[in-house]
């Protein structure tokens, strides 16, 4: 999904990000991006009975990166790990009402950090 400029949803999530902040007692965390390239996302998970009970993020990145991170956590919260693993960047972009073409890569940040966090959790608990 593509649009000319930022959707209202993107702006709204950028100005009031959901679940922003760190989580010192997280069960697992996942990372994506590279601060040297100007984008870096960390997602923290609290998991109970295979369900994402709480989720937080910390982001260094553009407007779309902030909105993507916020939306990713909103979509993942309350889902089982299996469901959350199936979330794609496409789902995130759609939930945001689209992203400008040169910003589509920002949505990958959310998907990868979430997957990384879940995989780290599974690796730890196996």
């Amino acid at each position: 999904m593509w649009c000319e400029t930022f959707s209202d949803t993107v702006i709204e999530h950028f100005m009031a990000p959901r679940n922003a902040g760190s989580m010192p007692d997280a069960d697992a965390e996942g990372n994506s991006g590279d601060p040297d390239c100007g984008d870096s996302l960390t997602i923290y998970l609290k998991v109970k009975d295979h369900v994402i009970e709480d989720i937080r993020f910390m982001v260094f990145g553009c407007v779309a990166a902030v909105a993507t991170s916020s939306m990713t956590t909103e979509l993942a919260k309350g889902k089982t790990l299996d469901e959350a693993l199936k979330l794609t960047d496409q789902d995130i972009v759609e939930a945001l009402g689209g992203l400008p073409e040169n910003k589509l890569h920002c949505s990958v940040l959310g998907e990868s950090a979430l997957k990384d966090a879940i995989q780290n959790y599974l690796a730890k608990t196996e």
Partner: protein
Amino acid sequence: MKKRVYADNAATTRLSRPALDAMMPYLTSEYGNPSALHTMGREAKLALERARNQTASVLGAVPEEIYFTSGGTEADNWAVKAAAELGKNKGRHIISTQIEHHAILNPLLCLEAQGFEVTYLGVDAQGRISLKALRDAIRKDTILISVMAANNEIGTIQPIAKIGKLAKEHKILFHVDAVQAIGHIPLDIQSAGIDMLSLAAHKFGGPKGAGALYVRKGISLPSQIQGGGQERNLRSGTENVAGIVGMAAALEYRNARMGSHMEKVLLLRNRLIEGLLRIPNARLTGDLLNRLPGIASFLFEGVEGESMVMMLDLHGICASSGSACASNGHESSHVLKAIGIPRQLSHSSLRLSLNEDNTDEDVDHILEVLPSVVARLRAMSPVWNGSRENY
């Protein structure tokens, strides 16, 4: 209405009143083609030549040395490529700097692909080139030195007169990209030994899409656009009469008030810099002394530039950032890299650029909003290790 503060005058400026007034007739009743023989054509032609006289007189040049272009980019392209064409039998070496605008860097890349060799001089931490490095870079086959008068991202002013002297000693053509400098700081083409100079109207209160290239008499400039023979057959195409008239009016207006404008803008800018440097881990980029009056450029550790610009915009403040995300194939600012800023930090840049339209209230508003914007973004930044309190 929500307060709006325009602090992006290095990107472009508001059309000044005298420029608009001067343009108005040529946008309405005086629409003749300057090449036409009839009264309306002759009137337009006269307006064009009046504008050429005004521009020349402000620059300390003669009218035959002024060629109108579509802006700074075209003037830069023309100058660099013309110098290469003129000099190619003498040599194929060009000297420029690592911090030029892309309107210079990209034409130079084209020339490199055609077999020219370019030395890009590095700069110190303040963004100034070293005259010794320039002297060392000069070779027998050097045909052009192109150095910007002042940088658009960090505002650093180069020692243009000293560079011009070196160029003259070695009989090398000297081009100056003065797009950010003209109308903002005094620049004497004659005493600085400048052979070619680019300017753009919209940076000093003129309209967008008008600019000029100054070319010292005696240099037989190759043509830029071929066609109906306008601009002494070197830059064809029906002239942007209103734009050119507006440019000349803006230039004259600015120039007459340069001293008082500089004083006013400097006071505003210094207050802005002082206030913003109170933010922890904030850093000024560029040279404190050799600096354009209007430019305040910073790094705010831990905060990404684009998100800063956007959050400021949502608070009514127009600013800009040289930072671009490299995950998208773009490189982050070549200027910040040249002054030695580490890659991650270079994504944390913010430029606020003021001019005489700005007020004390504008500065107050920025000083009120920006610290909390930085704090809010730092509060969720994984690369910020400092305090997460609100400032």
